[in-house]
């Protein structure tokens, strides 16, 4: 990982179904925009999922957020820079 690039986390609330990850991640891969890390867990009994995407603070980010908001299965998108800490801790877990 490049530690000197500024990172942020996108907090995406989605409908929980088998295709939703393809829709969200496809938006990034089609634009050659790398998602550094992904965390996804179902919420509220499984109807929705919360996806956290660790991404570089690229100047294309605003366009990505707007594109994501257009997706039918995406209910909400927010910036959550503080969640970067969670990814750092998860990184520790994965190294164990």
């Amino acid at each position: 990982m490049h530690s000197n690039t500024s990172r942020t986390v996108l907090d995406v609330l989605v409908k929980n179904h088998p295709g939703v990850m393809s829709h969200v991640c496809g938006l990034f891969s089609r634009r050659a925009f790398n998602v550094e890390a992904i965390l996804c867990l179902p919420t509220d009994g499984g109807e929705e999922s919360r996806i956290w995407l660790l991404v570089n603070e690229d100047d294309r980010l605003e366009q990505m957020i707007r594109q994501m908001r257009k997706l039918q299965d995406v209910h909400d998108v927010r910036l959550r820079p503080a969640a970067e800490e969670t990814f750092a801790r998860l990184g520790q877990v994965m190294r164990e």
Partner: protein
Amino acid sequence: MFSMTGAQLTISLLERQGIRTIAGIPGGANLPLYDALSRSTRIRHVLTRHEQGAGFLAQGMARVTGLPAVCFATSGPGATNILTAIADAKLDSIPVICITGQVPRAMIGTDAFQEVDTYGMSIPITKHNFLVREARDLLHIIPEAFAIATSGRPGPVLIDIPRDVQLETADFTHWPEIGEREPVPSCFDGDLDAAVEMLNSARRPILWLGGGVVASGAGQEMLTLAERASMPVTSTLMGLTAMPHDHPLNMGMLGMHAQRHTNMALEACDLILAAGVRFDDRATGKVQEFCPQAKVIHIDIDHSELDKLRAASVAILGDVREVVGALLPRIAPAERQEWIGYIEALKLAFPSQVPEQGGHDTPQELIRRVGELAGENAIVVTDVGKHQMWTAQSYPFMPGTGWLTSGGLGTMGFGLPTAIGAALAAPERKVVCFSGDGSLLMNIQEMATAAEQGVDVTIILMNNACLGLVHQQQELFFKANYFSSIYDVSVDFPLIATGFRWKTWDLAGAADPDAVLSEALAHRGPTLIHVPVDRDEKVWPMVPPGAANRTMLGGECHA
């Protein structure tokens, strides 16, 4: 309590949505749907000869009516064949609902016969897509598909239905509400204030109209705005019918194949009001150098189009017609004599290449003449190539003219099946399709569909025995190395069309071309008019791909 199969439910829900025509081709994985469709008394089926034809036929219906149209394909090759037409609908924002058959649920992911991942493949080329997992899910999926296809910025929706879901019985007590277009959120007053201030203080403003203006029916409002504020108007390929072609403020199309004075006026403007446009590179040229002196007011219904390729000084999210309706009362009348005079001078210095009257000596004059004969209410369809650009430049468009062209994807083969769909949706209107030999060959099998349906479609085939725009680019940018752009076999198109049961006319060697043209256009039913065109007839001027719009090759007037 209702009880029916997924297939019956699908057809009933489509009937309730008001669908009366479906284009498609049956196959193993959608046969239950076809069996149910055969029993419908309200929906007729149009059997095309290729699934891409079905997709474009649906596009033709949707483009003419503005309402969603439906096409069917089976799994695997049926689905892959139809995807080009769906991608085309996505780029031009056309509401099409594509329903594909899929292998049974238990076989999904096993590389079963005629299985492909239609859901996965259609994600990037649809506005939204569904893989139906249970028959009862159709109760909400189908109305939702119609709502999605028509709301906000329209677009295609794909529904993939496994064969066993089509056969599964669903029990339900109530029919769902019909899926309809949702109201557009209104725009911010603050943005309107800023736009009014900029418009009223601009010295050299230009109004730039795109497909969004046509889709929202804002042509009249735009005309009023242009006249009140003395704003010259330009449009994208998709926006050509927003304004009467002969209005003194109308400069026609901008970009790669614009008139010289149009691109030069854009170079000099200090404000551009971009309405329902997406800053496509064919319109803007090198976008960093587009309208270098201008502030931009951008109105669009799709938030992600605002600031996408050029940051707007004022970005207004909303329906173009509503936004302009709100702006209009606050626009101060202006004469702008200096600016209008400057543009008149540009027109004198760089006269238009567009014929003012029809004739038969050049493709452009012929197109103009067809427009004179076909009348304002005609529907004009094109394929993709030189003939398309000549039509965009020369056809006498009026706000009542239907204009169906593949703008975003540039799909050769678009013309014939789209024209059939247009004729089925508007049987009382004249449908004229300008095509080229390269384009026509890409979906020529749909001539059989046209003959079967007896549609009033007239193809004007401009035959230069080559891939014209490729040939032109090879000449200009690859030192005339014409590789794989010339057809060695001279195809006898009138003979082929006759074989498809079409009525044909040929302008080759005609003593009185105008009489031939008038007679052919007066004929009702599938008609081919064959027009030989010299391979060296160019589309001028031309901005080289990737260059700024001020760099225009050819088109000098030596009159």
